[in-house]
């Protein structure tokens, strides 16, 4: 069966550069990879099944644990789907705050990607610099909602709270200084000949292949396909914001790197615009099916008290039907599909997580490549295992 000097080795699940508990079974001949077989499921928690036993509000904290490095985007995808099911349109201010939070999540996720991508290929200082900037985003998220990683920062019908002046000031400082930092990263890597040697011309994915494999996000755009959910089906306030969708040309590791770097710049631009255009008003819709009455009313109004308790004890009850809605997460199209049977719990909830589809390209990417390039491939499709295994 085996030819001489062919070898099977296991990479992972406990390998520092598989970015989680991904197990790859590699067949190699010398230094050349003949076949890769990714095995997923080591982080399976049955989140979709858990959803069937929880009320719509209660499921929200679980969405944080999908792509745990960009939690606000997951929250957004989920609440947006439930809102679509209910036919609710959130207030303009809530929409803009959602955009800000989702873009912060994208930047922080891309920073983690850049840090680990650099570290995997030997650029140690990238790791230190990126995490320094990421810390600022974490602080911002903590200031907004109290938690750094598992934010649960949105709720069905709006966002968890209004943003404070302190938050706006700090965010302004951040977007003012961040473009310089991106410039620093680019000075370190973009033209660096060692970096070019390790990334250029390897792991090429053609546009056709990318579409066939169902890739989304920067992994798809690196191959030159201009598809971005934010443009294709604008959600939240993205239709009122002007930004570019960067695409690559060749589809190699280097192109995907460039796309993500440019995306960080665009995200900064989006946040700046969102802050400028931030409308006044409430951050929660007034809809008796989902909005709890104000706590101050409870002492005086019996109706409010009854509705308050009813909404918590019975939960949000959407009509029967099925719905799919997606957002452009940092890794690609993140979608939720909900089948509702008219009770307070979803009958079935399916999550379309981008990393799961993106990891599928790995075998065809790695065939015939060098073993040492495997880490570059894994980093360049930017997977997070919490999302793959869910």
């Amino acid at each position, binding site marked *: 069966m085996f030819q001489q000097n062919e070898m099977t080795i296991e990479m992972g699940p406990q390998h520092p550069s598989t970015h989680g508990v991904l197990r790859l079974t590699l067949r190699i001949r010398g230094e050349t990879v003949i076949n890769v077989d990714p095995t997923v499921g080591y982080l399976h928690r049955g989140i979709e099944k858990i959803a069937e036993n929880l009320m719509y*509000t*209660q499921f929200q904290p679980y969405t944080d644990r999908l792509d745990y490095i960009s939690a606000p985007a997951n929250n957004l995808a989920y609440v947006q789907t439930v809102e679509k099911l209910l036919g609710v349109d959130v207030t303009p201010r809530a929409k803009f705050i959602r955009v800000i939070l989702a873009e912060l999540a994208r930047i922080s996720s891309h920073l983690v990607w850049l840090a680990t991508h650099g570290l995997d290929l030997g650029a140690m200082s990238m790791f230190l610099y990126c995490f320094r900037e990421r810390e600022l985003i974490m602080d911002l998220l903590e200031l907004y909602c109290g938690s750094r990683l598992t934010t649960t920062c949105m709720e069905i019908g709006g966002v968890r709270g209004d943003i404070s002046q302190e938050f706006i000031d700090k965010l302004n400082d951040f977007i003012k200084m961040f473009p310089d930092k991106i410039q620093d990263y680019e000075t370190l890597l973009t033209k660096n000949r060692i970096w070019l040697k390790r990334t250029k011309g390897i792991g090429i994915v053609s546009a056709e292949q990318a579409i066939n494999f169902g890739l989304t996000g920067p992994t798809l755009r690196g191959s030159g396909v201009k598809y971005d959910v934010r443009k294709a089906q604008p959600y939240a306030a993205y239709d009122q914001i002007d930004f570019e969708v960067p695409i690559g040309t060749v589809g190699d590791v280097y192109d995907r790197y460039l796309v993500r770097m440019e995306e960080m710049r665009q995200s900064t631009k989006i946040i700046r615009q969102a802050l400028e255009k931030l409308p006044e008003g409430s951050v929660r819709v007034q809809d008796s099916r989902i909005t709890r009455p104000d706590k101050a009313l409870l002492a005086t109004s019996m109706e409010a008290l009854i509705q308050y308790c009813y909404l918590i004890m019975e939960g949000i009850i959407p009509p029967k039907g099925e719905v799919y809605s997606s957002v452009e997460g940092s890794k690609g199209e993140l979608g939720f599909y909900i089948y509702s049977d008219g009770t307070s719990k979803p009958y079935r909830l399916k999550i379309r997580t981008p990393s799961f589809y993106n990891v599928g390209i790995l075998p065809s990417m790695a065939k015939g490549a060098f073993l040492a390039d495997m880490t570059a491939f894994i980093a360049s499709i930017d997977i997070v295992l919490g999302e793959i295994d869910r």
Partner: protein
Amino acid sequence: MGNFLEKIFLLELFKGMGVVFKHVFIKPVTRMYPFEKPVLPNSSRGLHTLMRDADTGNERCVGCSLCVKICPSGVIHMVTSKGEMNQKRIDEYEIDISRCAFCGLCVDICPKSAIVMSDRFELAVYDRKNLSYNKNLLLKIGEVKQKESKEKGKDK
């Protein structure tokens, strides 16, 4: 020509080194954590506390058990009984922090603002049993928090 020179003299590498060298002069951002405690914002979601009414000193919690219902991990355990004058009395109130997701939903929905989150985050203990906080403990932490916030108010 420029390209050629760049290649010969490793310009891009030196530029990169310049960025790294710049950091010699920048103040480090490292926080010496165990010695230097971070100041967390007020909104921060740490260990739960149960609050007392500021004027009367009674417990604010009325035992409505909404927090028990909303908790996605089901970690709040509560037993109530009928006290004097037909009022609800809370006999047991326990939060098992080891399974808590710190989502803050219980805090959001509490109609009396009885359960709130403090900024305590160093929750490691040697024994798993100690991760379960009962009512008295939670009330005590609440008192500390109330005192602290009063002092903070005075400072300002």
